[in-house]
């Protein structure tokens, strides 16, 4: 079973795209992807409560296909953000939390960081519920979170292949080696040769999760990052879904 650990639904005006669930399911069917772990773009870019509720409605329409991340765009909402994680876990059955470091436009300096102090209770609450925490961040930020919350399941989105993380997947692998509760998600626009193989050689295939970042990138393009490698079928199967099944108890 292939599970895509990094999918967006909703309007993403920054990228001139919108992820519609019908398009997503058609695309996933073409590529043999069974389950899709989704965030909602309204929750990410505008209003987390509204976006998470919208995602919950989609989850109810497609309970066998869509898994949900509760998205907290800014932990500066304090108790409301923590309550939202609780609500999403208890009432909506969301199995993940998505958090995001936003850079100041035109720079790589964090404006909102997943490692802000006010994010800590949010992460702590998600860890209480055993949620998979998908963090768009750099290696330094995820390393600090991992040290503070060793009980949390932390997934470094894009494994360093972002502007915010300076494209530094070597550093991402290094911090994951240091902290066993860090996992790496393979979604990215980068196709650096050996990025995934190097991670598997150092960390083991158990620590990587397949992601596409759909609708930004096609599933076929994202799958090629796993399949067009020298990894064994067993290693590929872990990355493509086995690991997430284990983490979520599916």
């Amino acid at each position, binding site marked *: 079973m292939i599970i895509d650990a990094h999918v967006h639904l909703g309007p993403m005006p920054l990228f001139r795209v919108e992820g519609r669930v019908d398009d997503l399911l058609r695309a996933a069917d073409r590529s043999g992807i069974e389950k899709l772990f989704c965030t909602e773009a309204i929750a990410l870019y505008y209003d987390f409560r509204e976006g998470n509720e919208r995602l919950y409605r989609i989850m109810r329409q497609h309970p066998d296909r869509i898994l949900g991340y509760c998205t907290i765009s800014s932990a500066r909402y304090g108790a409301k953000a923590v309550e939202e994680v609780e609500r999403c876990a208890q009432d909506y059955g969301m199995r993940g939390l998505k958090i995001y470091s936003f850079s100041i436009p035109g720079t790589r300096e964090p404006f909102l960081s997943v490692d802000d102090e006010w994010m800590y209770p949010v992460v702590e609450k998600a860890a209480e519920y055993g949620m998979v925490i998908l963090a768009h961040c750099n290696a330094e930020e995820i390393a600090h979170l991992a040290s503070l919350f060793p009980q949390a399941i932390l997934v470094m989105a894009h494994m360093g292949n972002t502007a915010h993380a300076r494209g530094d997947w070597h550093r991402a692998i290094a911090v994951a080696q240091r902290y066993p509760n860090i996992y790496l998600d393979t979604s990215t626009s980068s196709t650096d040769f*050996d990025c995934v193989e190097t991670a598997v050689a150092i960390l083991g295939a158990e620590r990587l999760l397949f992601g596409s970042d759909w609708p930004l990138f096609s599933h076929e*393009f994202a799958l*090629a990052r796993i399949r067009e490698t020298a990894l064994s079928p067993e290693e590929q199967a872990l990355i493509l879904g086995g690991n997430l099944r284990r983490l979520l108890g599916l």
Partner: protein
Amino acid sequence: MRKFDVTGYFGTWPYWPLRHGSPDELLRLMDRYQIERLVLGSLRAIFSDWEEGNEEVRRLARRYPDRFRVAVTINPVLGHDHLERAEEYRQDELVVGLRLYPIYHDYELASEGNAGLPLLAYAAETAWPVFIPLRLMMNWGLPVLPLTQVAGMLARFPQLTVILGGVNYGEVKHALPLLRAYPRVFLETSCVQLQGALERIAAGIGVERLLFGTGMPLQNPGCEVAKIAHAAFSEAERAQIFAENARRLFDEKR
């Protein structure tokens, strides 16, 4: 489907070890993905000695003349006799064009009095294709040449044949007006990763101006093939992008 890859590299990558950079590995990858021709540029020429780097790549192409072509790199800031060397390179039937790296060689393409002007004038006069990669590969840690420099260069030399490479989704909307304005500008695909972006570019300028590139061995050619193989193109359009456009541009026999 046979392919003509217009972007490959040979040499040492200074930032991390490459496992697929040897000639044998390049040939193995080319066979695996049915790439019959690969245009190589020299990494040594970018980061160190351009003349020595070009010689290395030319020697390799002479060993495998059926598989490799060369886009020579000239650093107009260092060394001597740039135009004489350009003429020598252009006479080499395995050399298909000139690659310029203003960021790495510390000059600007568009500024008055820039060191590259004589080379660009030479390329324009002789219809010698010029490869301008905005970035070496789609890694977010590497610098990006501003498209405004390319626009300035084209305003001065509108007749230049340019292979614009390293364009990522953020630059597509700015690249399209340039591509529309200058029909001798081609777009190389190795960094255009956004879903639907190649289709949008083709709709804007015509599929015949897209050239397949992988950026191997820095980038995984399997991903670069997959994105085009599964894009919303007809088989005839795919064949144009994968090989026919490059063959026509570089005047290759099938």
